[in-house]
């Protein structure tokens, strides 16, 4: 199936019975969470990338919120990345990502729910083109909490869990943030997070879904022009 993003006016390819489909966008960090979960659990799936600027009508019928990711199979539709990810983890028993201990599960949810405090300044920094030092400090301050809570190799403990995947996509984009701000994530302030990032980059699932700083940069630049190039990096003959 082509990876090119489908836009308004496009025809939706039919979904075969029994098959699982992910509606996504290659550079969307929220959709990346769900891709990581699908890969981790070896769930067979097909992807339809969607042009989020020129949304197809069929897309809005699936999710009136008009957002990715969406998981669809056998007339069942689930959206919102956290809901999709829990759904997939409950439906498919391989390589479980939710902690068996209910207290640990709750504490990880608290960290996941609180992560908007990191993503909000993250986007503010990118939008300011890295010029505002106060915004960068706001972002680092929000990260302090996660540095403090990371007392084990992964947020999930000795092995990674749902929470590691929920946080990862924004950490993957710290490389391009460093290029924009001229400042890499200070290792002395964030030793645990820095080591965790190196560990995550070795994970096969992360390597499979990851984009390079150059690709992230190319997409972000196109986004800043007002005409995002959702297909950036795809071969012309796909």
């Amino acid at each position, binding site marked *: 199936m082509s990876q090119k993003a489908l836009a308004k006016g496009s025809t939706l390819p039919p979904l075969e019975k029994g098959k699982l489909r992910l509606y996504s966008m290659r550079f969307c960090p929220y959709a990346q969470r769900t891709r990581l979960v699908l890969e981790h659990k070896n769930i067979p799936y097909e992807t339809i990338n969607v042009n989020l600027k020129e949304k197809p009508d069929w897309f809005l019928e699936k999710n009136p919120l008009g957002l990715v990711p969406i998981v669809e199979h056998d007339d*069942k539709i*689930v*959206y*919102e990345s956290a*809901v*999709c990810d*829990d*759904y997939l983890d*409950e*439906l498919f028993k391989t390589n479980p990502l939710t902690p068996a201990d*209910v*207290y640990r*599960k*709750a*504490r990880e*949810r*608290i960290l996941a*729910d*609180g992560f908007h405090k990191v993503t909000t300044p993250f986007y503010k920094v990118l939008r300011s083109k890295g010029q505002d030092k106060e915004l960068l400090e706001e972002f680092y301050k929000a990260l302090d909490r996660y540095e403090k809570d990371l007392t084990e190799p992964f947020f999930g403990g000795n092995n990674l869990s749902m929470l590691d995947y929920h946080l990862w996509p924004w950490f993957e984009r710290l490389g391009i943030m460093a290029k924009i701000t001229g400042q890499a994530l200070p290792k002395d302030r964030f030793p645990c997070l820095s080591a965790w990032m190196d560990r995550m980059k070795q994970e096969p699932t992360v390597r499979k879904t990851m984009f390079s700083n150059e690709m992230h940069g190319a997409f972000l630049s196109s986004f800043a022009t007002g005409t995002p190039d959702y297909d950036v990096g795809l071969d012309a003959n796909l």
Partner: protein
Amino acid sequence: MSEKAYSKGSSCPSGQGKLRLYSMRFCPYSERVRLVLAHKDIDYDTININLYSKPEWYLEKNERGAVPTVEQPDGRLVYDSVVASEYLDDFFMQNRLTPDDPYDKACGKLLLEKFGKVQSAQYKAGFGSKGQDKDAIQDMWVALDFFESQLKGDFFGGNNIKMADLMMWPWFERLSPTMELTNEKFPMDRFPKLQAWVERMHEQPAVKKAALDPRIHVGYSRTHFDGNPDVDHGL
């Protein structure tokens, strides 16, 4: 144990070896957890927090300074309302509220996501505008249209009450007080199924235990509109 709220300068009451809920009597989010505790017959102590003059010690329980927070006798802490509700449902196995089927569970969560529009419209109509914002009332009816259409069985959970029913209940409890405060009427013809569900919910033991009389809600809201919220109103 007294229901009076703890304020700035107070000391944290010592534990009684029971599960503890940090709450505020009029907070709809806290009520969610009270409903779950009631539904599952869990024994617990309540510590009400004055959200307008927070005790310093409370920030050690919940760094967001928000209610509700659930504390186990051994000091384990869980917040906010949805995480605490799910944790209690996982920890205490009786009278299960989470649907067994993963798709039903996901649908319940998505229903709650959509419910945000009802919550924000109700807030705008009441506390947000001291009962003056008529457009917010209309927005609330429009948001409720979706829930009217989604109600297929006796409950949002189907034949039996489930997490989604309890998570949404506090805002339905506050509908009649909101009508009184804004001088509006609930359009019963527009929401026959929701009206029937509300009546069914009023019969639920959990709701009977955890709900507050509409007049007390109105009284509290008036203290809030006057700029002097009395979290102990009615005690």
